[in-house]
């Protein structure tokens, strides 16, 4: 009897927590359809803020910056991280402690320390040599730095999950290194590569702090645009652009739910 009451209380608490988790997002989406300027009252449904987005060049360029940054950095991180992941696997019997420390460093370093370290470094190198002008280039460098560990770890764990004799078989059959990569490694790694790419892409789009400190005047991404719009005083357009980003996450969530279903 007592057990049932406990379970019912827990269920109530669960729904309350869900409300807590989704209410702030729901409010943003709701007010993106608000007909009036007001942030306090909802006066009617309209799409005017979405229409305004399409004619706002700053937002469009922030969107394209976000996409270029995410794709370019993910591709570079995929190549570099893949190599490390394979190296870690192939030489896993050696003492690679220093490499593990190096790979975990970008993950454990607080965002703000990460961001300002790079900013300070880029600014000083730029003053001395003229290289690393703050902009999309420096942002790509910073993003690749925090994406590499995730790619390397995903690729490494995929290799560890494989039967080691597969590697011997490939060598025994006199496959050249190029053939081994093309016909054995890439096909077996494909799922890991796809998930590593999507994770890198998401990390890049989701990042604000590190982007904020390594960006230049012309290279604002969507989160940076939203940040400065909030700081300047809330405009209802932010609700619309934020809702679109929430929508993208919702699509990703449904997608991963479907993938989950198929696996079980």
């Amino acid at each position: 009897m007592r057990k049932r009451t406990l379970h019912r209380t827990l269920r109530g608490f669960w729904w309350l927590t869900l409300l807590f988790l989704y209410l702030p997002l729901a409010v943003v989406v709701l007010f993106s359809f608000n007909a009036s300027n007001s942030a306090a009252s909802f006066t009617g449904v309209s799409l005017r803020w979405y229409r305004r987005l399409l004619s706002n060049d700053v937002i469009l360029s922030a969107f394209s910056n976000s996409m270029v940054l995410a794709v370019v950095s993910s591709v570079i991180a995929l190549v570099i991280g893949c190599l490390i992941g394979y190296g870690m696997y192939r030489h896993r019997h050696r003492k690679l402690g220093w490499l593990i420390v190096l790979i975990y460093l970008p993950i454990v370093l607080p965002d703000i320390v990460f961001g300002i370290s790079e900013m300070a470094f880029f600014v000083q190198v730029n003053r001395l040599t003229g290289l690393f002008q703050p902009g999309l280039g420096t942002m790509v460098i910073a993003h690749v730095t925090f994406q590499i560990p995730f790619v390397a770890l995903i690729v490494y764990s995929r290799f560890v999950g494989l039967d080691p004799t597969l590697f011997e078989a490939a060598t025994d059959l006199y496959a050249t290194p190029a053939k081994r990569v093309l016909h054995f490694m890439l096909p077996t790694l494909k799922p890991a590569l796809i998930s590593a790419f999507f994770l890198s892409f998401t990390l890049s789009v989701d990042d604000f702090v590190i982007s904020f400190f390594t960006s230049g005047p012309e290279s604002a991404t969507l989160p940076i645009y939203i940040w400065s719009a909030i700081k300047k005083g809330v405009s209802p357009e932010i609700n619309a652009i934020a809702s679109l980003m929430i929508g993208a996450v919702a699509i990703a969530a449904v997608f991963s739910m479907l993938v989950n279903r198929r696996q079980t």
Partner: protein
Amino acid sequence: MATTSRLRRRYSSIREARHLLLTVAPGAAWIMVFLVLPSLYLMAVAFMTNGPYGLPQMPLSLESFKRLAGFGFLGWSPGNLYTLLRSLWQTIIATGLVVIVAYPIAYYITTCRAKWRPIMLLLVVVPSWTNQVIRTFGWMNLLAPGTPLSSFAESLGFIAPNMGLYPSSFAVTLGLIYNFLPFMVLPLYAAFEKLDLAQVEAAQDLYATPVRAFWYAVFPQTLAGLLAGVVLVAIPAFGMYVIPELLGGGKSLMLGNLVANQFSGGANWPLGAAGAILMLLATFIGLFAMRRIGKRLGGGEQVVI
């Protein structure tokens, strides 16, 4: 050369060493050049003096650490120390509240049907996939003066009329809890999933009160997950930048804001760098403590991030 012969001795063949170098070197070099080197530079900056435009200058000094402790041109002032204490306080409160919310949630998910569990976990995690700035903006909308939540708090007499729940340090705490809840639920869920229910049943058979049953049968078994969660929550919370900046309205700054503000607008790089060193120390002490305790508990290591 000496290094080559050492390599030859250490590795079975030069080819293997070259393979290791070719695969690992690009990434290792990337992280060295673009992260290790910059952080070392930042640490060096902390020991320099503040120059024009907030840029570091050469004479080495401990001035920035003194400034961090509150000693300025006008004598001692508690401003920076307040910020440090506030960061610590906010971190402790938020972590504690996150634990209190996450325990029942993680437990409840394990009691549900196996089919639903992945979806329930996903529901907890999905909000954290949206950008931090947007999530915080959502709370700004909810807590601003004149919103239902604010009016409700006003009618209960918690806040002065027309003040709103935001900006305030309460809003910052709420934002931190919101931001970090999933990071606590996931490791706790992993711990609950492995929980040996026989111990709990034994406790119930022996007429233990629910509190005692929890404390002696459940808590020790979930301690490793709890510790992992605490590290995942407390370390990033201590250096949080976005949430205090937006929800605190400049009144409840934390260490992350103190550091960041020294670098934007050219205030004082060495002071900011000194704050960053403090943050790094907190991070490494937290990770180290976690490793030690995890090792003692056995099996705690695998959950470290």
